[in-house]
């Protein structure tokens, strides 16, 4: 029923769904920021309706982080460094990882989980009919506020580790760190959208979300541990083909190892990778929407 009208961007074709209007009104550009703020407010209202549940969710996600941290606390009882990262340098790395993950989990994960369900049931039709960019709508409709707990915890851990390292970030670091956090979030988001697009083609999706987890698992370690024939090949693959390794490594290095001179090529590459993966995933997603056939009628 919708196929055919989606050969271009759904936003621009929204007016075509009203054949009964002789002269369609000029398409109004949706106010994305206001829509996003409304999504955020609605999600907050929903979260605050079940406050105990919200609190439990915060505790749940915090305990995962705590467990991961205890593992590394244990590891550093047996070694002074991992791949050239001392204990508090490594904790800067973990804090950065948590910071990026908490943003991705807050903004995109609840929606990504729902997307495959929308495709399966055919409810994606309703998203396509709305006069707003479909990717925007399905990426941000729900926001998980309980990830805020992890976010705050990560900031605390970061501040504590920097204090222990006796590092006061310079002007450039203060400016660049948030930029690279955003860039990391965008790379992970692009991966999510790519996998979401593949659900349109493949239907069943359970292994695909496992896949997301297993790929991002490679971003959880410093680049230095990828050595040897297999490690080196994996390091190359996850830096240049699926650039998840730069997600945490670049910003964490900025703060934890500011004196290393050879990080600039990688930092520049990270920006290029961000732009490319976002553009690529957007292209794939629109292609996938083109191939979408509704579930019924």
């Amino acid at each position, binding site marked *: 029923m919708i196929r055919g009208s989606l050969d271009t961007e759904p936003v621009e074709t929204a007016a075509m769904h009203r054949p009964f209007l002789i002269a369609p009104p000029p398409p109004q550009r949706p106010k994305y920021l206001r829509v996003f703020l409304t999504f955020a407010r609605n999600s907050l209202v929903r979260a605050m309706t079940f406050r105990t549940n919200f609190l439990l969710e915060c505790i*749940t996600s915090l305990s995962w982080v705590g*467990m991961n941290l205890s593992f590394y606390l*244990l590891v550093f*009882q047996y*070694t002074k460094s991992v791949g050239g990262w001392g204990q508090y340098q490594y904790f800067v790395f973990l804090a950065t990882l948590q910071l990026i993950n908490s943003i991705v989990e807050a903004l995109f994960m609840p929606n990504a989980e729902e997307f495959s369900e929308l495709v399966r049931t055919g409810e994606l039709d309703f998203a396509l009919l709305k006069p707003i960019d479909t990717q925007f709508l399905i990426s941000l409709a729900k926001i998980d506020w309980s990830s805020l707990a992890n976010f705050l915890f990560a900031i605390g851990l970061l501040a504590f580790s920097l204090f222990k390292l006796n590092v006061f970030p310079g002007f450039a670091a203060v400016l660049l760190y948030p930029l690279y956090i955003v860039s990391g979030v965008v790379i992970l988001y692009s991966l999510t959208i790519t996998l979401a697009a593949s659900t349109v083609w493949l239907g069943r999706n359970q292994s695909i979300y496992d*896949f997301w987890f*297993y790929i991002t*698992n490679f971003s959880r370690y410093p680049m230095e541990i990828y050595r040897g024939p297999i490690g080196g090949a*994996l390091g190359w693959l996850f830096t240049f083909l699926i650039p998840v390794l730069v997600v945490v490594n670049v910003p964490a290095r900025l703060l934890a190892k500011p004196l290393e001179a050879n990080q600039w090529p990688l930092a520049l590459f990270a920006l290029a990778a961000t732009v490319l993966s976002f553009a690529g995933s957007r292209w794939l997603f629109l292609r996938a929407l083109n191939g979408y056939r509704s579930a019924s009628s």
Partner: protein
Amino acid sequence: MSSTTSPLTHAVRPDGPLARVRTWWTILRICLEERLVYRGDFMLGTLMRFLPVITQILLWSAIFDANAEASAASGVASDKPVMIAGYLYGDFIAYYLMTMITRAFSSMPGLASLIARSIRDGTIKKYLIQPVDMTGFLLLSRVAHKLVYYLVATIPFAVIFYLCRGYFLSGWPDPLTFLAFLASLAMSFLLGFFLDATIGMIGFWFLEISSLMFIYMLMSFFLSGQMFPLDMLDKFHLVGSVTWGDVVRATPVQYLAYFPAAVFLGKIQDTRLAWGLAMQLGWLLFFVWLCRSAFRRGVRRYSAFGG
């Protein structure tokens, strides 16, 4: 028509032992077929489960190298290879690979939540009105699940273990140790099942047990030894010579990953091995009893509304 010619009387008596075996066989076959529907998904899932092992290998290789460098830099020339908590580098990797096997036996994804949900939404009635024991039915369906899993997973497991055979420094264990390993593996499957089922039975008393289940999952993840060998905790003393490692090894969750793996690698021998197996059997019997009595008591207080 007299009742003696009725086909029913020629059938096996519904309460005889043969009938019971036949029922179980049917249940097992149904579950097997159900499982094989998603075999492609299964195979992919199994292969991907090894991806985190690769990063674990790389991580521990970096840690061991850092320690070797540190001891070389300290000037103490020693031929002794670096050890962490009594494990050589190869031992560490072999340990992680072995926990993959033990977890393949002891993990019961979704069992507790399935039981709790069927209590909450009332679908548990289907077990209560049929002459089928619910715990037995679920156990058989898990056996079927695991059988299919091993069937599909043998190939990826064999490939990975063949590639990693160099990490098993002492090769195959002697036959007796191997037998003990198999016994503890079989018990870890049953223990995993009855532990999870018992947690699910709590649903008879509390409607929502997801946070409880989460605590259990967290504990079994961290303390079963699948994240690290529990011997690493022996560095920390609780009181006197009692270490945190001893405390964790007194819990039943260590049998879900650590114990069988450590037995295979020859870390637990002689009296400690016998004692460990006996303890595992003890925990298993305890949880069988706890699960059964929780079910009996739970059903007595269970009430369903609506239709």
